[in-house]
């Protein structure tokens, strides 16, 4: 598999480290049901068969965290975005992940 880092270009899989689902969002620790929300955030996964938005770290490259959209059946990659920009825009627009 090859991932096109938006900063570094098209690179081999072994430059990257995988974290997991990018659609879960760290809950507000002050909310009353924080414990349940954190359990969901840390442990529960949709694990879809198909498109998956996921976090990767360009470990052997620019050290950017990336949001990769990928089909987990075919490994086809539809898009790669810098996680920082995704996060910032989600924070401004308040969009749910």
């Amino acid at each position: 598999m090859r991932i096109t880092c938006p900063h570094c270009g098209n690179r081999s899989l072994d430059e990257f480290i995988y974290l997991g689902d990018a659609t879960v969002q760290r809950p507000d620790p002050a909310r009353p049901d924080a414990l349940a929300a954190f359990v969901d955030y840390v442990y529960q996964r949709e694990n879809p068969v198909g498109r998956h938005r996921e976090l990767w770290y360009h470990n052997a490259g620019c050290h950017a965290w990336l949001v990769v959209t990928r089909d987990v059946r075919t490994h086809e990659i539809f898009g790669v975005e810098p996680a920082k920009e995704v996060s910032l825009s989600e924070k401004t627009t308040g969009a749910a992940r």
Partner: protein
Amino acid sequence: MANRTLELRSAVPELSRNSRIGRQDGPARLVVSEMTGLSVVSIAARKGQSGSLQGAVKKLFKIELPNTPRRVEAGGVAFLWAGPDQWIAITDMAVHPDFDRELVAKLGKFASFTDQGDARTLIRVSGPASREVIATGVPLDLHPRAFQPDDVALTHASHIAVTIWQIDEEPTFVFAVARGFARSFWHWLSDSGSVHGIEVSPGT
């Protein structure tokens, strides 16, 4: 040079003397030397200050800080892209012994600076076999159509994180390798290059 009162030591003793390694007949097809005597500083733009930093650098050094993996050089200082809003600056230690402080003084408002002059070993590789040898460790397309002088890449070589850039069309490549790994890097390079014959010249 008041701040370098202690002796400097290379991380790769094998690169400190002239030698011919591997295949002995014919001209060496790989030429390797360590680049010593350099100051290297990491630059990371402060939040929202990337534009101001670039402006200030332009004013001071007459160059545009690259926003893509490229290297620019002016007045004896080279700036290499090192990640989003990050660069490394390289210059002659004899001229800029406290380069990090110099940069903090001039640009401290816009960026954070970290001295890296001792963190990395810089190794220059050239010769007709250089692309072929490098390909045994570096998973990048270094064909002249794909990688040209002043192109920079952050990647790995034989399991070791490196920054690689090309400085001329001969071609000559430079590797910046974490100092602790430099000797393993050399082991790989010399193993892979032996079949072509390697000429080692001491650091410059």
